[in-house]
């Protein structure tokens, strides 16, 4: 226990040191100063409010557009996996299908069932939207692109994602439908349970980086895979998978999609919704995929870190090189996140669904104890590494090699499966 306590106190002392010089307030402040307006003048306050509103607008739209694009992506990917075509009429490869759908849903009648608690029924989708859009505030996108690099970033993200459960419960209860109630109760039980392993798994990178800030955790990693936290030690590797599984469960994604299990509960908590309110639920579900993947990328997979470019040197860059590398880092971050999103979709269209008791026993009997043990292990390992830094390098190297081996074996197995059934690999056709 003392090892953990030492490690935690070490981390806390470094939290104070990390700060980002490029937060939006400072940006606005700088702009005003350049025009000779003092920070204390009423105009400055007004400008600050306007800037915040603008940022909020951008953030909410970012979230909505990301969710919309994922709706298209998921349908295309699902179609490929099921040897179907999928939406391919609106725009190139059907890309604008999500806009067409949004327009359709906007124009649909907003039905409220008789006997429903009208106000709660109307409000529930907004609870979910708020909980979901708030996460985008503390999510990094690239080296400089972040709405607000909060000192309590990870903690904040965990807190606001839990807000979604209020919306789920409210929608299920207010619908006055038994199927909705089943769905919402399942969802509440599931989200609350899986918060614990998710939180404990996120404690591992927080310990390693010594900060709760998402940018700070990314900065503590490096560009190469062996510098990522996921390959830092076995407990961190386990923590990555625990976080990923818990995030799936929190986001109601298969194989944990019990709250909206269409074969059991018709549609779960959103059974009675229609039109735009219905689409909010799905917006949140798809948007959540970005949130969970981006968080996993930030804290475990090195975030936007470019291989061979130190974060400090990145900060020092100016001019065209800085802007160019900024874009590259954005692309790299998006690429990593999208691969995780793809994995989430892949799982959804492959795996059957768990039963409620299996879901709960997985959480409480396996994930929770393992995540606690993992956090302790990491704390001890940090002390060991301080005494013998060469062990750190060996462990990172070994785990990265293991990861590469697993990926190679998986690809070989897949190819042999494809050969066995007399099929061929076709990634280009059918678009």
């Amino acid at each position, binding site marked *: 226990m003392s090892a953990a306590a030492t490690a935690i106190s070490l981390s806390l002392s470094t939290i104070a040191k990390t700060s980002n010089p490029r937060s939006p307030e400072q940006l606005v402040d700088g702009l005003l100063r350049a025009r000779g307006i003092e920070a204390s003048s009423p105009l400055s306050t007004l400008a600050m409010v306007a800037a915040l509103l603008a940022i909020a607008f951008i953030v909410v739209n970012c979230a909505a557009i990301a969710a919309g694009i994922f709706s298209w992506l998921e349908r295309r990917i*699902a179609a490929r*996996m*099921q*040897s*179907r075509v999928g939406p391919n009429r609106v725009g190139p490869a059907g890309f604008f299908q999500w806009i067409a759908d949004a327009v359709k849903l906007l124009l649909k009648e907003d039905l409220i069932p008789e006997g429903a608690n009208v106000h709660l029924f109307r409000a529930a989708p907004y609870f979910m939207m708020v909980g979901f859009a708030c996460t985008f505030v503390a999510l990094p996108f690239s080296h400089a692109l972040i709405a607000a690099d909060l000192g309590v970033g990870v903690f904040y993200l965990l807190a606001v994602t839990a807000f979604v459960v209020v919306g789920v419960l409210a929608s299920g209860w207010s619908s006055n439908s*038994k*199927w909705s109630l*089943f769905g919402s*109760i*399942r969802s509440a039980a599931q989200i609350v349970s899986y918060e614990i392993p998710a939180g404990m798994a996120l404690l591992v990178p927080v310990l390693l980086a010594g900060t709760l800030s998402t940018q700070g955790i990314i900065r503590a990693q490096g560009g190469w895979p062996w510098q990522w936290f996921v390959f830092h030690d076995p407990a961190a590797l386990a923590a990555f998978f625990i976080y990923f599984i818990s995030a799936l469960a929190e986001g109601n994604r*298969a*194989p944990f*999609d*019990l709250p909206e*299990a*269409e*074969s*059991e509960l*018709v549609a779960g908590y959103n059974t009675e919704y229609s039109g735009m309110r219905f689409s909010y639920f799905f917006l949140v579900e798809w948007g959540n995929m970005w949130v969970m993947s981006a968080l996993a990328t930030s804290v475990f997979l090195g975030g936007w870190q470019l291989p061979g470019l130190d974060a400090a040197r990145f900060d020092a860059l100016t001019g065209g090189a800085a802007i160019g590398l900024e874009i590259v880092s954005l692309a790299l971050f998006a690429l990593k996140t999208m691969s995780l999103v793809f994995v989430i979709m892949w799982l*959804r*269209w*492959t*795996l*059957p*669904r*768990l*039963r*409620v*008791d*299996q879901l709960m026993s997985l959480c409480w009997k396996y994930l929770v104890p393992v995540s606690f043990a993992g956090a302790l292990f990491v704390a001890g390992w940090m002390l060991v590494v301080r005494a013998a830094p060469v062990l750190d390098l060996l462990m990172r190297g070994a785990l990265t090699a293991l990861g590469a081996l697993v990926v190679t074996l998986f690809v070989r197995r897949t190819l042999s*499966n494809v050969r*066995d*059934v*007399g*099929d061929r690999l076709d990634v280009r056709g059918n678009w």
Partner: protein
Amino acid sequence: MSAPGTDPSATMTSGKEVLKRIEYSGEMLVNMGPQHPSTHGVINFLVQTDGEEMTRAIPEVGYLHRSIEKIGERCEYAGFMPYTDRVDYIAAMFANQGWAMACERLFAIEVPKRAEYCRVIACELNRIASHLISVGTMAMDVGAVTPFPYALREREFINDLLEELCGARLTYNYLRIGGVAFDLPDGYSERVLRFVDHFEKVLVEFDRLITQNRIFVERLRGLGVISRALAIDHCLVGPNLRASGVDWDLRRDLPYSAYPDFEFAVPVGTGAVGKTGDAWDRFWVRTREMQESCRIVRQALQKLPEGPVMAKVPRRLKAPEGTDAFSRIESARGDMQYYVVAGPGEMAHRLKIRTGSFNAMGIIEKLSRGIMLADLVALIASLDVVAPEIDR
């Protein structure tokens, strides 16, 4: 109106009373159906539940009752054939065959050998199609969405083949009393063989995708275990019976049509992952039966004899009034039985169809006691009940 002295309310417990009994017990009553994604047709289950764990589910059937038996009494023997398609529209070929065989027994008609082979080929293809729907929807009910389109993709090929044979993709009306409507078209064997070659590989892929999937196995092992004795007592038939460990297949044990000519295995549930007769066994038996059907189709195409496909059938089919005939065939959902009593004219006096789903439905209430809500869905799917077959 009915005969006097038979007032139904005097002797029966009305459905409303059953409902009251449940509501007064203080538990939640959920109507699962008649419109529910996984009731496989229009069936209602009155689910008496205490949260996720349910006390029992009471099946309420009859939403698809079209009184096909009454229709059978009002049209001529040959004219009833298209109606039999609607008895089980997922495996219509078997319903055709049951009726054809009942009438052939009634009128003592000998079916030509080639016609029997055509029937076997059509029926076995239809069996594969029906089982594909069954295993696909079962996987979907357990939450795996992808196996379903895989299964339906293969079923489309079969639909194409059967369309080529008889012009219809769902309600075939292919069989006739005394033979079949059309001979196999030119080059049909090659096309069927090409499909069978392809399909056997797909079955391997399907097994890898879902049959051995860890979550799938965990969901289904030990669920809805039907012991050998219970299965026979409830007269379960077909794959449901075989999954319970009863080594019985009409095609082998009471051979009819051309089945004695073929060699095939009868898969029997062994409890490979849980107990014998659990939901996984029923799933597994169906996947293996598709393999065996492929074998039968291959052999039938190899041994296909020449000759006519229709027997000489009198223009007016008539039997002495009161003569009865009984036919049993192994349909995709098991032992399908037609009991026909000849009427005075060219119509049947009475027709009774006993189908596999009807008996399977009768056992659900017993099996549903104390299982989880999510398991009920898997249980219904594993018994492969098809609503039109229950209600007729």
